[in-house]
């Protein structure tokens, strides 16, 4: 599962950082600082424990040395941008996507010089609206991100990452096992229907819907559905906050039943991995009800919560986050 060569590479990660990024005087040679863009300072924070917890998680498990305090910048023209190789933005924290020409120029230069931008919540299905408590694995960037990047790299669209992309295997490989979850062997880690869906469709082999932009042949910008909600841990190591699962289930004759069942809401089209569109059925005030898939199959959305669900989801998101940040460092 864990690769010794990678660990060795990570131990010497200060060499993995592009030369363009200067090292600081106070000994940061031995610890890497992640930058986070926060426009409104402390006014609009989503999941405040998330990034520091993930950095601690990586320090603990990957034996890499990240500074656990992210460096918060308010503008992309901050001169410190060029001193650190990874910039993290939780798009749900941004008051808007208005970036000045100077900021876009600075970002373009940053990415061209070898910097890496991770846009968490850079994927968000339109039907979620302003609801920040949900994620949905669409396979395209959210419209605001697309519009912003058309000003940064007009000629480069976001491209979905293949399921066999190395980013999914940078450090962790596959989905969490009972051992990873600290469960006894015979313990059920998830309800059966949930486990089947997760393993086969939601996160097969520990993958997820990611889209990215390559700059000079290197993946320089990555967008994902919100992952930060899965990174937080309290001082005792328990995951925070609780996470639920939305899964798709079928049953006998659902293709007919759901086609005819009472419904008074709206439908939304969401792009799938294969580029086709799912039609999501949503009733006002309720979570999405069911989906008509392009194959003609109808499936119902079911919602699962509880300790085991939350622990599993957190474990997955922390492993994915680790893979993303370590990939960013190594490439």
């Amino acid at each position, binding site marked *: 599962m864990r690769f010794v060569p990678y660990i060795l590479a990570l131990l010497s990660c200060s060499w993995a950082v592009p030369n363009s990024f200067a090292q*600081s*005087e*106070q*000994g*940061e040679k*031995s*610890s890497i*600082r992640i930058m986070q863009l926060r426009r409104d300072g402390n006014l609009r924070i989503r999941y405040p424990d998330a990034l*520091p*917890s993930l*950095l*601690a998680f990586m*320090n603990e498990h990957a034996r890499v*040395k*990240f*500074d*656990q*305090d992210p*460096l918060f910048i308010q503008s992309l023209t901050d001169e*410190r941008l060029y001193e650190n190789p990874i910039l993290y933005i939780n798009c749900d924290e941004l008051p808007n996507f208005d970036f000045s020409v100077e900021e876009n120029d600075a970002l373009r230069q940053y990415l061209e010089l070898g910097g890496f931008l991770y846009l968490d919540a850079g994927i968000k299905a339109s039907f979620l609206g302003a609801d920040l408590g949900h994620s949905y694995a669409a396979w395209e960037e959210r419209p605001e991100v697309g519009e912003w990047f058309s000003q940064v790299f007009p000629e480069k669209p976001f491209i979905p990452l293949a399921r066999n992309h190395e980013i999914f295997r940078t450090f962790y490989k596959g989905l969490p096992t009972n051992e990873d979850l*600290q*469960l*006894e062997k015979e*313990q*059920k880690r998830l*309800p*059966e*229907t949930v486990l089947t869906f997760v393993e086969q469709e939601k996160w097969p082999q520990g993958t997820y819907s990611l889209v990215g932009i390559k700059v000079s042949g290197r993946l320089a910008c990555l967008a994902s559905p919100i992952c930060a909600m899965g990174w937080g*841990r309290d*001082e*005792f*190591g*328990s995951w925070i906050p609780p996470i639920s699962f939305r899964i798709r*289930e079928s*049953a*006998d*004759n*659902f293709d007919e*039943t*759901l*086609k*005819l*069942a*009472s*419904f*008074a809401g709206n439908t939304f089209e969401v792009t799938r991995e294969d580029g086709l569109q799912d039609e999501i059925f949503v*009733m006002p*005030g*309720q*979570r999405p*009800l*069911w989906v008509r898939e392009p194959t003609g199959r109808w499936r*119902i959305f*079911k*919602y*699962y*919560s*509880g*300790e*085991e669900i939350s622990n599993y989801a957190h474990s997955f998101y922390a492993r994915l986050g680790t893979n993303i940040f370590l990939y960013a460092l190594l490439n």
Partner: protein
Amino acid sequence: MKYVIRPLWGLLTPFCFAESPVLPLTNEPAEQNQSISLPPPRSNLEKTLDEAENKLKSSLDGDRLAAAKLLGKYPNARGTYLLLVGLDDDNALVRRASIVSLIEHFDSGQPMYDRALTEKIFSKVGDPDVEVRREVSAMIPRLSIGLMRSGVERTVVNGRMVFRSVPANLREDLFKLAVDALIDVDSIVRQNMLKYHSNLRLPIFPETLGVLLSDKDIGVLLVALDKVRLHPQDDTVFEKVELLASHRELGIRTKVVSVARELGYSHPLYRGVLRKMMTDDAIEIAAQAAVEIARFGEKLPDEVVAKIEAFLLQSPGLSGKVESIFYGLSSLGEDGNRIYKSLTSHPSGKLRSQAWQRYLSLTEGWNTPQVWLPALSDRDVDVRSAILITLRGRLPELGEPEIRTLIDSRYADVRAFGAESLLSAQPVVVENTFFDLLIDEDNLVRATTLRVLAKLRTQGWEKIHQQSLHDQEYAIQRAAMDGLLINRQEGIAILKDYLSKNSSTKIAQAIRIELQRMRVPLP
């Protein structure tokens, strides 16, 4: 074209949704437009529920399962009661689907406060299927509102109507199920029951707590440790806590430190647990325990202080456990100050800035420039500004060497602070140094210097301000104007003179507004 006519009953029910468009009747033969087909009309809510009810009675497992899943989408009283039927199904899959759908009803705002209803759901905490038990045990906080409802019971005794109050207790058979669930074979159920026992007013006896404190599951242990406060003086419970103080998991040991800290005030036995933990193999646990002991007023051995210092110096940042240890250092007295000082060279910017603030505050270090002057050469602007905030307004009179050090800094914020410091310097020091600040490359430094000179009324300040009104930078012009305005006697004449010669500049407009506000006749 096929035309669809909404059935009359559909128009009359409140669930007449815009699913099937009402189209006009026509005499046009249908076969002429057969190539276009509309989706079949959706049924209304009543009909959908009728169908689900029929399927729930089906002998086919698949039908019952489909109905249980679908009913979750209709959060209303009828849907809820139909799902209760599904809870008694022979097939575990149907029972699972029913409980998941009931939770969906809860989540959609369907009220479930009826006692009989909640008792029915809670009774499934004894279901043979683990998934059902997990879901039900996780629902306890929601179910408890109905479950623990008191009320009045009406009975007929010898032909007479008698009203008796029903206490807000769990029904006897359910109470037994809940007690059994505390030691369920599944750890998630155990954890949920323990976490929510107070919602059910379920007592945790010392023997039960002792068993749960020996649990193999980390999650159960963490919750059980939270409950130690229920029986802190029980010998078995205390022994278990002592054993957990050397548990293999760091999280558990950290929790033991936290529990021992809380109980240590009223139950000194628990301080003994902390003392033992000061020798923990993990330096962070040892450091945490030591800081807690110091908070009780006990003196720490030198080697323990050294451990704390080593832990903080090697920690990668100020968060989580490090943070609580860091702020606990002040209870170590002189040793704590020394550690704060050594942390001022930590690689983490946040830790450095906090260490400087704590160190300067606890030692009144602002009185000794030799202490804080080196700190202002920190490359991290956040560290420098944290230090400057601590120093501002507290500095003693600075001598020329200190002022020189500040104004020679490579950082503009420090040079601006040097300009501010002139306010408390001897006039001769001001006269020897202000010129360097006035020709600084940074606007903020120059503007600050102008304001300071106006405040001090340094010799020749009027001419400097008069010249500065012609500076290219608006910030400098503005500072010059402000300086002239606060010294009205000399300043007004200079401003009026400027206005008479430069009436159309941006600063001239600002001057005009300010003078008008002061009711000064304009040229």
